[in-house]
C-alpha cells in the first residue's frame, strides 16, 4: 500500500464526518425529547449546544480543503472528499434545525394540537438521517436509495399534519379557548416545527445522494 499518510487522512476524514453526524443525531434526539416532554432543561441544552457542531463542521471543511490542495484526490478518493464536504454542510443545517426544536419547546406553554404527532414525524426524519449515515459508513448504495424513497412518505405525513391543523382551525371556534395571538403563535410554531422536520428528511436525502455518488459514482439522486 502506497501513500500511507494520505490514506490515513482519508480515514480520518471519514471518522470526522461520522463523529459530526453522531453529535448532530444526538442533538436532534434531544430536541425531539424536549419537544415531546415539554422539557425546558433539555430544550436549553439543545438550543445552546450548536457551537460544538459548528466546530466539527469547520474541522471537516479544513480536512477536505487540505486534501484537495495537497493530495489532489482522484476517483473514489475524490468522491469521498467531495461527498464529505457536502454532507458536512447538510449535517450542520440539521444541527441548526435541532436548535430550533429547543426554541419551539421553550416558547410553547401547553400542547395546542395533540392530534398532530410531531414527535413521530421527527423520529421518522431522524431514522432517515441515521440510515443515510449508516450508508455513508458502510458504503451501502442500497440503503441510500431506500432512504431517498422514504422522503415521499415523510412529505405526505407532514402535509397531513398541516391539513389536520388547518381543518381544525376552520371547523372549530377556538376564540373562546385562548386568545387569538396565542393561537396564532401556536399554529405558526407548529407549522415551523413540521417544516423543520420535513427539512431534516431533505438533508437526510442529500446525505444519501452524496453517499450514493461517493460509493458508485452515481449521481441519480443528486439531480
Amino acid at each position: 500500500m502506497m501513500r500511507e499518510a494520505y490514506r490515513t487522512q482519508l480515514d480520518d476524514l471519514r471518522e470526522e464526518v461520522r463523529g459530526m453526524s453522531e453529535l448532530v443525531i444526538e442533538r436532534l434526539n434531544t430536541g425531539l425529547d424536549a419537544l415531546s416532554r415539554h422539557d425546558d432543561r433539555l430544550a436549553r441544552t439543545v438550543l445552546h449546544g450548536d457551537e460544538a457542531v459548528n466546530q466539527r463542521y469547520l474541522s471537516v471543511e479544513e480536512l477536505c480543503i487540505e486534501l484537495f490542495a495537497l493530495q489532489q484526490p482522484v476517483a473514489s478518493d475524490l468522491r469521498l472528499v467531495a461527498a464529505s464536504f457536502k454532507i458536512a454542510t447538510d449535517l450542520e443545517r440539521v444541527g441548526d434545525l435541532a436548535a430550533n426544536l429547543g426554541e419551539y419547546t421553550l416558547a410553547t406553554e401547553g400542547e395546542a394540537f395533540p392530534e398532530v404527532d410531531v414527535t413521530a414525524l421527527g423520529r421518522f426524519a431522524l431514522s432517515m438521517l441515521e440510515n443515510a449515515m449508516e450508508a455513508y459508513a458502510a458504503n451501502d448504495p442500497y440503503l441510500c436509495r431506500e432512504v431517498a424513497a422514504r422522503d415521499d412518505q415523510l412529505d405526505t405525513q407532514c402535509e397531513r399534519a398541516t391539513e389536520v391543523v388547518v381543518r381544525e382551525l376552520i371547523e372549530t371556534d377556538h376564540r373562546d379557548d385562548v386568545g387569538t395571538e396565542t393561537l396564532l403563535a401556536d399554529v405558526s410554531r407548529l407549522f415551523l416545527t413540521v417544516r423543520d422536520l420535513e427539512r431534516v428528511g431533505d438533508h437526510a436525502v442529500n446525505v444519501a445522494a452524496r453517499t450514493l455518488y461517493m460509493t458508485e459514482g452515481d449521481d441519480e439522486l443528486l439531480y
Partner: protein
Amino acid sequence: MSDNDMNEREKTAMTEEQIETEDVSDANRGRVISDSTDEADDVLIETGPTAGLDDDKPSRGTGQTIVESRNIDVWYGDDQALRDVSIAIPENEVTAMIGPSGCGKSTFLRCINRMNDLVDICRVEGELTLGGKDVYDENIDPVALRRRVGMVFQKPNPFPKSSRDNVSYGLNVQGIEGDHDEIVERSLKQAALWEEVKDRLDESGLGLSGGQQQRLCIARAIAVDPEVILMDEPASALDPIATSKIEDLIADLAEEYTVVIVTHNMQQAARISHKTAVFLTGGELVEFGSTQKVFENPDSERVEDYITGKFG
C-alpha cells in the same frame, strides 16, 4: 535503457527523419509505390510529403477517429511491450496516455509514427491506421508518415541553429514551398513563442530557456503542418510556469491538430486531456475513456488503484 540513452536515440531518430530523406534503412522503404502511374517505374523510393497516404487530409473538428489501432502487439526481442492494444484516438482532441514506467505507453506513441522502426529488435503486429490508412502498409513511407505525425520529446532538442532555421528546417528538407518566413512566424505564434523571439530570430535556439526551447521544438513540429502531434513527457523537464505555458499551448493546438501526450504527471493528464488511456504493467491498455470519467469514476479497479496511488 536509461532516459539519457533514450534521448540520444530520439535525437538521432529525429535528425535521421528530417535529413536522411533518401535513406533506405527502414525495412519497408524502397518498394515500388504503385504500378498504376507512368512514373512508377522511375520512382523506387517515394519520399514526397504524402507518399502512400491520401493527399486529402480528413476534415478537422469532426470528432472522428484519426488514429486507430487494432490488436497491436509489440515485442522488443522476446519481451512483449504491448499486448493486444485496440484504441480509437479522436481527431482534434488531446488524448493522454498514462501508466507506470514500462507499461508501454511510449512504445504505443512510437508505433503511431513508426519510430519503433528505428529499433532493430522491435517487432510490431496488428493494425494501426491514420485517417483509415494502415501506417504499416508496405506502400507507406515512414518519412512521409512522420511529416503528418510530428513528435515532441521529453528533453527539448533544438538543432544548434538559429530559431528561424530550427522552425524552417523541416520545410527545407521536405521541399515545402511557400513563404517560409511567414510559416516560421505563424508556427512560432501558434507555439506561443513569437513575442519572445521575434527580435532574435537569427540567434541560436540553444540560447533560449528550457521552456522556450520546448516551444521552439513544438513550432518546428507544427511548421510542416502535421495532423497529429505526439508528445512524450513534453513538460517533465520544465518548471511549473514553463509547464503551464506548454499546457495552455496544448489546449490551443488541439483546435487545429490532434495531440497524443504521454505523461507521468497524472494531474497534468487530468488538466489538459479530453480522453485518457491507462496502460498498466504488461503492456495492456486497461481503460480508455473521457478524462473526467477516468479520474472521477474509473471502470477498472486496477485503474482506480493506480490513479489513487494504492499501487504503482
